[in-house]
């Protein structure tokens, strides 16, 4: 084995995608009050890098990169397949929207440095880097570090306002996330003990169904589920997400929970494909189904809008796990796998946009009205029509109604559920859609109510924030109009057998 590998072909966009935000985070600290400017500069640049990476994956197929030239198992490799490229691009787009939104809320007065203004941007950059590291890592231990990086960026974000309840929420979040990471690490340790490597690609070749792997799979999955807040491990999510500042909630709900979901899929489909069983897939899907029903009903009964949106996240995360048995997790490759895979991922992406838009919109309502009690937001629709429209459009995607990315995603999941004979998951999805309609419209109803005197926002809401919200919502809808590109991209790095589509 040569200690130093041959240089990779092509420009290492994959490295840059991680490097850029992390370097930004490091630089933000000494830059102080200029951190905002730095972030606003880096995020568009990062989007370009993400797109170039995606283009590279699209053109050349899967991209792998041995860091330092040390090839696995000794070294650490980065790997970008279609799925990770899509997630990286999604992250960049959502962050762009959030950054546009936040650039006026987290802005220090001239010549001065304030706590929130510095830390928000530094944490945001760190979080971004952590996300990209999680999406692009191919080494289980490295992914553990990336997850911890993510947690340590996300928790302070959730408690940025440092009120008692957000502190408590953040602390619970921290504990749960840490427990999840440790369990994940424990699984990784076992895998190393059994196979002498933590590289996903190598593990896929070496790992077989045996006690160590079983234990490892159970530990790692459970740990990741805790971090994803899949029912019944969701206790930390609603208070943490609802208590954070709007921009932070958007990132947390749209992206952070997706990282651990992403790793679940990596683990099941890429690292241990031979280990997972059909029963385990059904178990995951059952938890997902529980999340859908449970989260939706609870969302339906929330009094505060941000909590409603947070519980909606709990519910929507459930859909992601329905894809596991549908996409062939724990079984032989089936013709419908590609459909389910695309459906699940598309759902993750469109939910990211939609949920970011919803949280930002909720934040604007909160800002304008001074509170976010749904019933008392009467007439806000007239005061903030664009935001209301954005909320509605995002809701559209959550409902899975056309035309939206959520619809296409749901459609793919539904057709595969039927095609694979697992109609019960289809029923769950239908029920979830109806419940989602219930809570989305419950939130919209007071907004559109007509009041005797026109409602004026308590504090003015800048135009650019409204555009940012609308832009994110439109992204989610646009996915329903032209999802073909992501679909093909998603298949890069997937087994050939799944290329057929769902006919």
């Amino acid at each position, binding site marked *: *084995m040569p*200690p*130093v590998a*041959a*240089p*990779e072909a092509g420009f*290492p966009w994959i*490295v840059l995608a991680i*490097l850029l935000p*992390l*370097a930004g*985070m*490091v*630089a933000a*600290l*000494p830059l*102080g009050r200029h951190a905002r400017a730095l972030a606003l500069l880096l995020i568009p640049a990062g989007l370009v890098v993400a797109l170039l990476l995606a283009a590279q994956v699209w053109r050349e197929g899967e991209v792998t*990169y*041995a*860091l*330092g*030239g*040390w090839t696995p*198992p*000794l*070294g*650490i490799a980065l790997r970008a397949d279609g799925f990770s490229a899509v997630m990286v691009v999604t992250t960049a787009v959502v962050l762009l929207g959030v950054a546009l939104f936040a650039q006026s809320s987290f802005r220090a007065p001239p010549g001065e*440095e*304030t*706590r*929130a203004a510095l*830390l928000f941007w*530094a*944490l945001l950059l*760190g979080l971004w880097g952590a996300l990209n590291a999680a999406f692009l890592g191919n080494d289980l*231990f*490295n992914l553990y*570090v*990336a997850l*911890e*990086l993510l947690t*340590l*960026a996300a928790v*302070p974000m959730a*408690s*940025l306002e*440092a009120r008692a309840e957000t*502190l408590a929420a953040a602390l619970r979040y921290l504990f749960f996330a840490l427990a999840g990471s440790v369990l994940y690490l*424990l699984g990784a340790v*076992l895998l190393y*003990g*059994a*196979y*002498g*490597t933590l590289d996903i690609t190598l593990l896929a070749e070496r790992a077989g169904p045996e*006690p*160590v792997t079983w*234990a*490892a799979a*159970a530990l790692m999955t459970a740990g990741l589920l805790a971090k994803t807040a899949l029912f019944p491990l969701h206790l930390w999510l609603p208070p943490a997400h609802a208590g954070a500042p709007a921009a932070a909630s958007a990132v947390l709900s749209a992206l952070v929970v997706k990282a651990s979901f992403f790793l679940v899929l990596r683990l099941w489909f890429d690292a241990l494909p031979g280990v997972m069983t059909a029963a385990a897939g059904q178990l995951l899907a059952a938890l997902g189904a529980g999340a859908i029903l449970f989260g939706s009903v609870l969302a339906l009964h929330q009094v505060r809008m941000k909590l409603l949106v947070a519980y909606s996240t709990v519910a929507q995360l459930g859909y992601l796990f329905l894809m596991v048995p549908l996409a062939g997790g724990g079984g032989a490759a089936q013709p419908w796998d590609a459909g389910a895979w695309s459906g699940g991922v598309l759902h993750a992406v469109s939910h990211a946009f939609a949920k970011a838009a919803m949280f930002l919109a909720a934040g604007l309502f909160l800002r304008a009205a001074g509170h976010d009690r749904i019933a008392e937001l009467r007439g806000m629709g007239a005061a903030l029509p664009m935001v209301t429209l954005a909320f509605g459009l995002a809701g559209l995607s959550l409902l899975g109604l056309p035309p939206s990315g959520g619809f296409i995603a749901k459609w793919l999941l539904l057709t595969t559920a039927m095609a694979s004979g697992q109609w019960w998951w289809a029923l769950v999805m239908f029920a979830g859609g109806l419940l989602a309609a219930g809570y989305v419209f419950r939130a919209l109803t007071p907004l559109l109510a007509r009041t005797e005197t026109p409602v004026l926002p308590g504090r003015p809401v800048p135009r650019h924030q409204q555009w940012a919200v609308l832009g994110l919502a439109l992204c989610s809808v646009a996915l329903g109009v032209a999802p073909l590109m992501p679909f093909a991209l998603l298949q890069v790095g997937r087994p050939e057998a799944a290329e057929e589509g769902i006919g």
Partner: protein
Amino acid sequence: MTALWLLDLCLVAVILAVALSAVAARDLFAATVFFVAYGLLIALAWVRLDAVDVALAEAAIGAGLTGVLLLGVTARVHMEARTPGPGRGMRLAIGAGCAAVSVALAAAVLSLPVPAPSLVPAVEAAIPATGLGNPVTAVLLAFRGYDTLLETLVLLLALLGVWSLAPDRLWGGRPGLRHRARPEGTLAWLGRLLPPIGLLVGVYVFWIGSDQPGGAFQAGTILAAVWLLAIMAGLSDAPPVRSLALRLVLVAGPVVFLGIGTAGLFVAGAFLGYPPAAAKTLIVTVEAALTLSIAATLALLVAGAPERAP
């Protein structure tokens, strides 16, 4: 063999007993004390497991700094939880679940393959290219340098997280309460005595790290402890958070690491790669910077969020 085996058995028994006590102790302070003791015992276990680097790290970080952190805070919060814990049935169920997890883990451990797969040969094959003698340092800074890079960023982020809890009006201020030790008290005495020794030890641990057990993390921790001691003794004050110099020290390690790593892109053909000829020099440079930053970061982590106006 048998003696060692018995020693191991005793050590393990004590470790488990202390761990149980730490969990079961009524009182937070007692639990913390048990925990510090536990950390030292575990360090011993690491020695028994032929992992001196880890033992050092565990003693310095796991037992030392964590202990200081926890002990420091016990004085400032209520010792007891006010709400009662879960009922007996619940505790029983949880206990059973935990036991089941342990049993399953034990089964997994027992079923690990023989011979164990290992990367020892790979490390031995690759280590010459780094010019280092300590394989652990080689792994940390070369083979898995990326992990280490992220790890330093984790520390930095954690520091940011701690700072984020400062009240807005005190932003930029100094962390923690001002320590005023009696000038002729033990603490002051220790504070005057220990830093030079600690400094020496720290530099030594850093310096041998490339070939012997030791390295940036251990050294950084020792230096951090020294600084903390000095602060506690009232010999120096924690710097204000807004200080640019402090911030530059904090990011120096990551910046150097990132810089050299990026240079590797052009020089060695890969990010975080080193040209074999200059490998050791570069690695030591990185380590030096890291040591500095880690020391500052760890110390400030323990010191806490800004609590005093600058």
